[in-house]
């Protein structure tokens, strides 16, 4: 249960909202540790949404949670993660004379750690407001 992907970190609305609530709060932490991969890659590596994996490269490593996206949302072989401390762990300080570290498109190793908790499928009771 190991594989290589190319990581493209970026902004997301959830990450932005989390940022406003506070970077030291749970929500931000949760958002920035979610790794989005294509359904095909997940299947190939035997991963499911909610699984915990270790992603690493020659710079550093970090633990994140997998989210598998349906076909076409993200190309096979690539993974997306919102900006945050976990993605920073993998950035190289080399900027090739621009000041901008290569923050998109680094190769990472993905390694399975443990199964995620099964999501409760039961819907919460309807409130009066619907």
């Amino acid at each position, binding site marked *: 249960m190991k594989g290589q992907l190319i990581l493209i970190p970026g902004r997301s609305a959830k990450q932005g909202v989390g940022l406003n609530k*506070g970077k030291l709060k749970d929500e931000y932490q949760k958002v920035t540790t979610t790794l989005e991969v294509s359904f095909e890659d997940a299947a190939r590596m035997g991963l499911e949404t909610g699984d915990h994996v270790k992603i690493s490269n020659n710079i550093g490593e970090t633990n994140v949670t997998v989210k598998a996206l349906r076909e076409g949302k993200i190309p096979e072989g690539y993974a997306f993660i919102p900006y*945050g401390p976990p993605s920073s762990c993998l950035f190289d300080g080399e900027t090739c004379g621009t000041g901008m570290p290569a923050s998109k498109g680094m190769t990472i190793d993905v390694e399975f750690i443990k199964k995620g908790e099964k999501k409760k499928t039961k819907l919460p009771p309807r409130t009066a407001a619907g």
Partner: protein
Amino acid sequence: MSAVSKDNTIVNEKIVENATCTFCGCCCDDITLTVDMDKKVVTKAKDACVLGKSWFLNHVIEDKPIARIAGKEVPLDDAIDEAAKILIEAKFPILYGMSDTICEAQRQCAPIMDDCLGTIDTTTSVCHGPSGMAFQGVGEPSMTLGEVKNRADFVMYWGGNPAEAHPRHFARYAVTPEGMFTPNGKDDRTVVICDVRHTKTAGVADIFLQVKPGKDFELLWMLRAACKGVEIPDNCKEICGIDKETVTDLFEKMKNCTYGVIFFGMGLTMSRGRHFNSGALMALATDLNEFTHFVAKPARGHGNVTGADNVVAWQTGYPFGVNFSRGHPRFNPGEFTTVDTLTRGEADAALIIASDPVANFPKPAIDHITSEKCKLISIDTKNTPTSEAAHVSIQTSTYGINTGGTVYRMDDVPISLRPAFDSPFPSDLEVLTKLRKKVNKLAKKLNRPYATKKYI
């Protein structure tokens, strides 16, 4: 103004009309805020997007010390004195950040570094810094956002995800609004999205182009060649992932529109090629002016990062990555940009204003800035990993909510803020003005010999 709340207690309510949200570079200035003046919170932010709502509604006056040195609470002036001393004594002081504060505060920053013979850099260097460099190389045809609303019949987003990063960009400026010469809104426009991922933004597209990651430059250059009459190559799909017919059709649409615009994001500036990518896009927009009116614009991120660019540029001549160690500004991205000065372990003091490198920077840079070798000073409105790691940490009030001032929208249009309620924390402007004075005083005392010779 008074009103009755749900549980029948009188609340002291205030309405702020035409407030500006400074979360992203859209700087929407049409927000109506409802403020509970007793509790000091914004209770409603009418017309704000999901990011704007969370920006306003989550803002609370926290109970925390204004100034700390090594974690201990101290009077503000002591913290400023300590910060000034650190900066003036440092061999290689750097100042970084500035994107989330007003221009009036930003204007204090370069003079501080001028006195310390230090280095000033803004978050631009890890955002659209490469676009700034490309601009220096090729220029850029551009516009204010109202022109897009009034005229653009061809709108393209390249390597950006405004649906998530600038949620109101579509509705307020570029896709749906009904303008002077676009009376039918979206029906009068062709909307094209080019990205490596099928993002939320892709949903609004008339045409979605999923370019191979890292192949933006190739596609841009094909289009530039097309402007000069070169046919799109047959192996186009192999090269960039999009077939020849689609690219040819895209080029025809670009050529034949009346007013075309491309917004581009960090998909271009952060990938391999960086400033070559943004440069190719700006050059393409320039080339297209042979056929029609065509413009391009980077979709800038944080509230006032555009202001930071402008202020540093008018004070020093360069937009970011400026060093004063020889007694005049010098610009060299890769040398004086913050990721580099930290990664190489050069900076021995860092003044971080309204930004969070400890959370966002590459690991080697974080390792240095949090180490003993670099004295860290933080001026920020929120607790962040940077403020927590700082030796001197000063908490300030939030721009656009607690303090007024000027911000620049992503299209360089300056907008004045309308604050909602006071804060017990000092403003960035107050803190930085004091720091500037203090540093200036210490510098005068040092009476350093200033350079008068050119090294070119």
